[in-house]
């Protein structure tokens, strides 16, 4: 096995997804099989190949800087799980939590 459960837990922390131990074990098995399959790409020498970043050539489109109406605050906030006045509420960030 090339991928350890510790690595999967590390990746889950990076991705901000809480993984219970049994899920981490199951994910490790699945991801290891998939990554094992991916190793076949190493059969190809790609040293002189440019990566495809844009599949259809397109120059960066620019537009005039115009003043336009934007999404009303009311609309932007209507799906927020914790709305506070005209802001998105989040749990307290400083001092280790609590509101």
């Amino acid at each position, binding site marked *: 096995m090339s991928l350890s459960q510790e690595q999967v837990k590390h990746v889950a922390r990076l991705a*901000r997804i809480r993984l219970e131990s049994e899920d981490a074990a199951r994910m490790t098995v699945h991801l290891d099989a998939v990554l094992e399959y991916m190793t076949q790409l190493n059969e190809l020498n790609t040293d002189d190949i*440019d*990566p495809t970043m844009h*599949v*259809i050539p397109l120059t960066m489109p620019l537009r005039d800087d115009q003043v336009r109406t934007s999404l009303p605050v009311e609309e932007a906030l209507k799906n927020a*799980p914790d709305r506070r006045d005209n802001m*998105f509420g989040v*749990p307290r960030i400083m001092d280790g939590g609590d509101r």
Partner: protein
Amino acid sequence: MAIHEFGVRELADRIRAKELSAGEAVAAIFDRIDKTEPIIQAFLHLDPEYARRRAKVIDQLSAEELQHLPLAGVPIAVKDNMTTISMPTTAGSKILKGFMSPYNATVVDRLEAAGAIIVGKTNLDEFAMGSSTEHSAYHITRNPWDTNRVPGGSSGGSAAAVAARMVPAALGSDTGGSIRQPASYCGVTGLKPTYGRVSRYGLIAFASSLDQIGPLTRNVEDARLLYEVIAGHDPLDATSLPQTVESGRPSLPDWRDVRIGVPKEYDGEGIAPRVQARYHEVLALLQEQGAQLVELSLPHTRYAIATYYLVAPAEASSNLSRFDGVRYGFRAESNELLPMYERTRAEGFGSEVTRRILLGTHALSAGYYDAYYLKAQKVRTLIRRDFELAFGQVDVILAPTTPDIAFQFGEKSQDPLQMYLSDVYTVTANLAGIPGISTPAGLIGGVPVGIQWLGAALQETRLLEIAQAFEHLWPAQPWPSVGGDL
């Protein structure tokens, strides 16, 4: 013929001629949905009230005004990963349960401006990640031809709704085959346009360098009608192409003028013998008609799945980071920020989405980026070049859409790699950015199978003409008996 059996063109013609009202069309469609939806479960949301209101607006227009509406009064379903102001948009995920978008996707605005009536939002694998619609957080969707089988995915709800004749057309999205594969499994026509042809503004992003919206319909002409409405430049999508979209009457090709590429990599390892036999039957028929079959090689095809399943999850892991429980959607309670994020995402995402986010995060993480993501993007260049070379020799490439017919529920859902491998014939078009269309090629044991036509970038018009000519050679089968009306 009952109203629900009419296609897009047939309905729009009658409504424009005022032989049929949009109100009658909507009523007939909802009668049909009432009968079949309990069996098929193609929809996540239906809005008959909204559809009736829209129909009234259409029916108040003059005959002259209706002439300008290519989709006058045509009921259409939209995959639930495209935003709608009037209906919820969930992307099949618990994390977006009840989400009401403040704006319409450009495709939704364009459909409505063309006179179409959005009747509901169709089921999908969560965030369009899957090949069976079994990964929807809400419910499964059944294949109208055999309700023990999956409709394919991720646009399984759209394909099933069209096949069951609940709607004449639906929109899907295709990141690695999610329009073409369910079209094949459900016996309908599904078009993935060139990358950038159709605006993705309002499409909930899965893999931004691959995603493309397209139509699912019961014939090629209807696919073209929808394509012409939704394609074209949109300033709201920076990847949207500026090239004009051709429209007008198609001129069907003489097969003697068509050079068809037959790639050997799509005709061997991994294909079910019954599908291979049908593919050969189709090729023989085309040759009989005078088409020139050109054997060719797309040598990097065997690396396509590995490439796709690095690129797509990497981009998905980045795109899905926005679902953090702050601005919209579900939030798990916690009085600290980090645990709130981690619990929200653990409880809000299903296992397939989690798996792909982890895979993508790993592929992009320090120390692995070069070995995985960058490597895959380089192999992608090789896959793209294979097609560029091929389209120097042929007008179109013909391949199977899927290695086999629709599988049964649960058959592949326990083994992610097996599920991924079933996308082998469709992911290449997304990696190369080229258009592809799956059209029906009859039934195998009572279950449909499709074949796939691939064209050079921006050559949708030619591709659609060729596919339509094939439809004359191989007319679609009778439609599945569902809801007790056949």
